[in-house]
């Protein structure tokens, strides 16, 4: 798979100095307003994720770890601060530009897989490629490769309801990789799986990081899962600790 390291539409890739990490948040803050009251979720987060890193975001329920992940992935907007990914402050992008940026730069893995029920495994993986200008045969080729990678070549024509939890998550992983994104984000990827299957998924993620050099940011509350990452970052009440 060739690298698709495009910046957002209209902006040239910035000159990334070797010292600037792939992901860097500066003074990242997020709060909600409920019933007139301001509820802080994240307070002045300064996180650095170098390229090729595999970091586990940990913390108790309500610590803001999922929110932090969502912000880095560009599916939520901060109240203040910068989110620099590959030199681009995505917090300043418009809705349309952000969507295009996500399509090219982020691969998503959700706790509940979020596959489209009416599409086959093959078509689910192909989905992000529909936003590119690749030809049909080019798309097919890539999807076939991705299926091989996650070991589901023989399940290509199955629909999600015909696959086990672990298999669905592997399809989701293949979908997350198909555009060769800059960053892979995973929100409780093993949350809905049993220990054994979860272990297989974590193993797959490890391989992606070590063999393909993918940068992975994972949210988990399971210490055993966190151990499989390169490093751990802890959040408590919206603040990075230790």
């Amino acid at each position, binding site marked *: 798979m060739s690298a698709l390291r495009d910046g957002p539409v209209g902006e040239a890739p910035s000159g990334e100095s070797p010292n600037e990490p792939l992901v860097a948040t500066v003074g990242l803050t997020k709060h909600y307003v409920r019933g007139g009251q301001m509820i802080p979720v994240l307070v002045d987060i300064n996180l650095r994720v170098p390229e090729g890193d595999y970091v586990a975001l940990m913390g108790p329920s309500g610590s803001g770890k999922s929110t932090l992940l969502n912000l880095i992935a560009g599916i939520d907007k901060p109240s203040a601060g910068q989110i620099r990914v590959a030199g681009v402050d995505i917090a300043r992008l418009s*809705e349309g530009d952000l969507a295009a*940026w*996500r399509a090219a730069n982020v691969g998503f893995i959700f706790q509940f897989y979020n596959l*489209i029920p*009416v599409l086959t495994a093959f078509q689910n993986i192909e*989905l*992000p490629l529909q936003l590119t200008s690749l030809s049909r045969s080019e798309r097919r080729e890539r999807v076939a490769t991705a299926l091989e990678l996650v070991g589901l070549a023989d399940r290509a024509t199955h629909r999600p309801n015909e696959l086990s939890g672990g298999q669905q998550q592997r399809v989701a992983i293949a979908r997350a990789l198909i555009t060769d994104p800059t960053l892979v984000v995973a929100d409780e990827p093993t949350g809905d799986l049993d220990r054994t299957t979860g272990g297989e998924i974590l193993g797959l993620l490890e391989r992606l990081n070590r063999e393909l050099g993918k940068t992975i940011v994972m949210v988990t509350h399971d210490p055993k899962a966190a151990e499989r990452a390169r490093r751990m970052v802890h959040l408590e009440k919206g603040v990075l600790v230790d």
Partner: protein
Amino acid sequence: MFIPLLVLRNAFRHKLRTALTIVGIVVAIVAFGLLRTIVDAWYAGANSSSSVRLVTRSAVSLVFSMPLTYGQKIRQVEGVTGVAWANWFGGIYISERNFFPQFAVSAPGYLDIYPEFVLTPEERKAFLADRSGAIAGRKLADKFGWKIGDQIPLRGTIYPGTWTFNLRGIFDGAEPSTDTSGMYFHFEYLNEAIRRQYPRRADQAGVFIEQLRDPDAAAAVSQAIDTTFRNSLSETLTETEKAFQLGFVAMSEAILAAIQAVSFVVIVIIMAVMANTMAMTARERYAEYATFKALGFGGGFVAALIFAESLGIALLGGLIGVALTFPLANAFASSVGAILTGFRVTEETLALQIGAALMVGVVAAALPAWRASRIRIVEGLRAIG
């Protein structure tokens, strides 16, 4: 393109729900079409009128007759090339349920003015030769299984007594819109009998029908005829045949307006049902829409999915509904046929049916599509069905 695939698969995800929705749309579209066709049929009589014919009646009301002698004077009015007269008989054939129009008409004058009543030369001759003869339209004859030579008894209401006629001819219509549901017999036969029993009611015509040389002279000739009889015993009102027919329709205007209003109500009902279906369907798929957006598809894409599904289902229902309208209209016509002739599904009705189906599809999808396009990804992903 994969959007049609996605839309198609999504539409039939909930087979029962989609099937029910389609049935609902079919029923609504058929009902809409039938109601409009009923209203059209009511007006049909006016639409099949001729532009070279005028109708003269008593200015006071159609219920009054005019002296027969008027016929001569009308014939002499400039622009009139033929005159005939007719009396509404209003008899009962066996039972009141078997209503059909019956007229005592001047022959052969009436046949000459109504060339669209097509008889074979033999039938025409036989009718003209038999004083107590009658002719009936094809539709009427078929309904009761009449054959030439049959004796048709009518119980008079306006002209009391039992009257029997010999069916001498069955006429077809020259055009499909020609009314072949009526029965016509000799005015003289009626008049003679009346003269014997109620002499004062004899020699009275219900309406006169005039043939024009030039259709554009209709207004002028009408006025000329009425002027002839101004300040006489029986003042007249002459109008084009179309205006005359429309006068009848106008009498039932209130009911027609109500039926038309009701035909739109059914569309509103099905709109509510479909809007509900689409709203529920969209809500159940919020997590999917959020996923699409997360992957980089825009809000417009999500909205388009919903619109396409809604329109697809609505259009399918609309087409089936249109197809079913025809056989149902025929069934309806055969049970109501004599009272409402011209029961035909018009192109305008068909167009409106499809239009209504499309509108239902669009309106039903509007709010859900707008909402779905605006989902915040994070909330959508959190949503569970």
